[in-house]
């Protein structure tokens, strides 16, 4: 199952002509790789270094902190209600992901593993929904939520996931397609109802795909800026980390060193989560682009 195996395999048969060219290529490739890696990591390095400087130094050409002000991280939490933003972000991401799973897994299952008339039409609907920029429908949706008196909160962003998320449905469906039908056939032969087949047999096999979809949803909502901007701007109690971070620089007396510290704080949970769930994550990304 190559989709799930992502250890890098070396292409076996690259015929190399001569040791000298081999060494030169080796050096060239590795130098470029290292240089590129450094360039890609450099911004992170600067962020970290700036976050422990004093603010005065942050505005000067000195790139290495003269004094290490680790208390900047404490100050960030004092200057802005980061804990509240964190709680809001967690609530948004966790609930949205949970609701998404509840509604999208069944739909993905029906689209992938059951046959019924109208199935392809429904899948087309999912695809179209997936490709649509959210800005197209934002105005009437905003009016709707205003009428239901939920603007100023995160609910307009969380609740729609109870009714399926197109991208997640697509992702899980693609994964479900890869599970051989034999498992289901065997279960049906044993007399299992369709519900049991889905619940006991197929879905447990789909755990990696479901995990990938869940992770995607979590990151998407964690990083969402436009949504909270639109719906919770006027109510700072409900801001998420993304929105809080963006307006961090608007607060009086904001400094770049603190801003960078806050930036790092917002980045860290995602990076940590990634390291723990690497396999599932990369798998999910691959699923969107690779079938089979």
């Amino acid at each position, binding site marked *: 199952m190559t989709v799930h195996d992502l250890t890098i395999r070396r292409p076996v048969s690259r015929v190399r002509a001569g040791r000298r060219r081999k060494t030169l290529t080796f050096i060239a490739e590795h130098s470029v790789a290292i240089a590129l890696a450094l360039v890609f990591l450099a911004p992170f390095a600067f962020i970290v270094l700036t976050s422990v400087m004093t603010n005065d130094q942050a505005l000067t050409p000195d790139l290495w902190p003269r004094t290490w002000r680790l208390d900047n991280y404490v100050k960030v939490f004092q200057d802005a209600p980061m804990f509240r933003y964190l709680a809001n972000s967690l609530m948004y991401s966790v609930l949205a992901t949970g609701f998404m799973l509840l509604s999208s897994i069944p739909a993905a299952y029906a689209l992938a593993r059951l046959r*019924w*008339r109208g199935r392809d039409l429904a899948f087309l609907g999912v695809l179209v929904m997936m490709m649509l920029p959210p800005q197209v429908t934002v105005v009437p949706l905003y009016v*709707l939520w205003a*009428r239901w008196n939920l*603007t*100023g909160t995160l609910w307009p962003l969380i609740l729609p996931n109870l009714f399926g998320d197109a991208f997640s449905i697509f992702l899980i469906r693609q994964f479900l397609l890869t599970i051989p039908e034999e498992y289901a056939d065997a279960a049906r032969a044993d007399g299992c109802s369709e519900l049991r087949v889905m619940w006991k047999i197929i879905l447990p096999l789909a755990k990696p795909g479901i995990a990938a979809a869940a992770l995607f949803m979590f990151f998407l909502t964690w990083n969402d800026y436009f949504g909270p901007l639109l719906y919770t701007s*006027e109510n700072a109690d409900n801001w998420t980390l993304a929105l809080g971070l963006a307006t961090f620089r608007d607060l009086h007396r904001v400094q770049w060193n603190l801003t960078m510290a806050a930036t790092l704080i917002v980045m860290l949970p995602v990076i940590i989560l990634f390291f723990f769930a690497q396999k599932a994550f990369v798998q999910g990304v691959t699923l969107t682009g690779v079938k089979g």
Partner: protein
Amino acid sequence: MTSAKIYRLALGLGAVSLLAAACTATDKKSQEPVASPTASASGQVSFWHFFTGREAEAIDGVVKDFEASHPGITVKVSKGQDDEKMRQAISAGKGPDVGLSYSTDIVGNFCTSGAWRDLGPYIKRDNVDMNQLVPVVRSYTEYKGTRCSMPVLADTYGLYYNKKLLADAGYTEPPKTLSQLAEMAKKLTTHKTNGDINVIGFMPFLDYYENSPAHWAPHWAATWFDQAGKSAVASDPAWSAMLTWQKQLIDYYGSDKLTKFSAGKGDEFSAANDFERGKVAMMLDGEWRIAFINADKPNLDYGTAPFPAADDKQNLYGGGYVTGNIIGISRGSDNPEAAWELIKYLTTDTGAIVKLANGIKNVPTTHAALTSPDLQVDDKFKTFLDIFANPNSATSPSTANGAEYQNLFGTWIVKWQTGRATDLQAGLESVAKQIDDSLALGTGS
């Protein structure tokens, strides 16, 4: 059709009809009958304003006084709320009972659309004497006969100058004419070794801190709209005079250098403000800057004066741009009586006005407060009180579109000052047309 399809169709139709029902206009009546004078106001009132930090604390102090003198009313204060947020909230039916806006820009829009309630009935019922307010603030808090807001302290703009930097260059007096300003600005500027500007005499960019066409207009007597209500930026020669003067100074410095200087500017409302840091010798700013300097850099040796006027219009000298904070009751407010009590207190109670004026160093708007012995006036603050009283002082007109006409002009000016637009008259005419078109679209005329 399969039952699956039927189910889905049914669901779809059900949902749509539900929404159709939800969407039929709930025409919220914004004005319930005003309660009789004997009804006592009580309950909770939400109050949004735009101030933050030290200024927000000053507001808190006055609000506490209000709660003390009006037991039964509690005020829930939200700071840092700008016009956009207020408008969004009011539109969604969740506006605050009382909202305070930083400028008069929204008066036109809020009064015509009913976003803020008409205060006329309340004023009449409680016999509020409108003559206690200075005339100019009365004019900018109403729109076409509807009074939907009251003034809360005014702002005037003048020149701040760094006495030490001026003295170092041999100047003892601030400039009175614009050519003096330009000349002194050049002499007061110093450069770094790599050619970048180190300290600038006067920053001519019109999007730097408080520089804006509206704030500069009174010093050339430039008008925004003609009698017919059409934009006058192209027809009034004062505007091209202003922009020509500005361009000469920009060309002297080099717009790239100015852009770089501007990119490195400190936050306007912090101790890193360029003037407070000594990076700018002369600057246009509002009277509130005095309080900021007192708090951030009390040892700064500076002076205040009216902003210079055009050479050929020296009679204008002594005036300046005037605007103010305004306050109103949101359309969907549940407790308009208590809201009105808060507004009355903040806008007509002399003690409250003086305390707030002393706290944030803004200009009081009632005659009584202006002449009150409790008002702390030093020579720096007196400059602004004089500007406020000067007959040449002007405010910017209110439109149904808010301040969009200013934004449209400002955007073109950025092109002008960075050298990407070179035909001044053609540019002004295009801006005038944009302003007219935008007003037409917004008002349906």
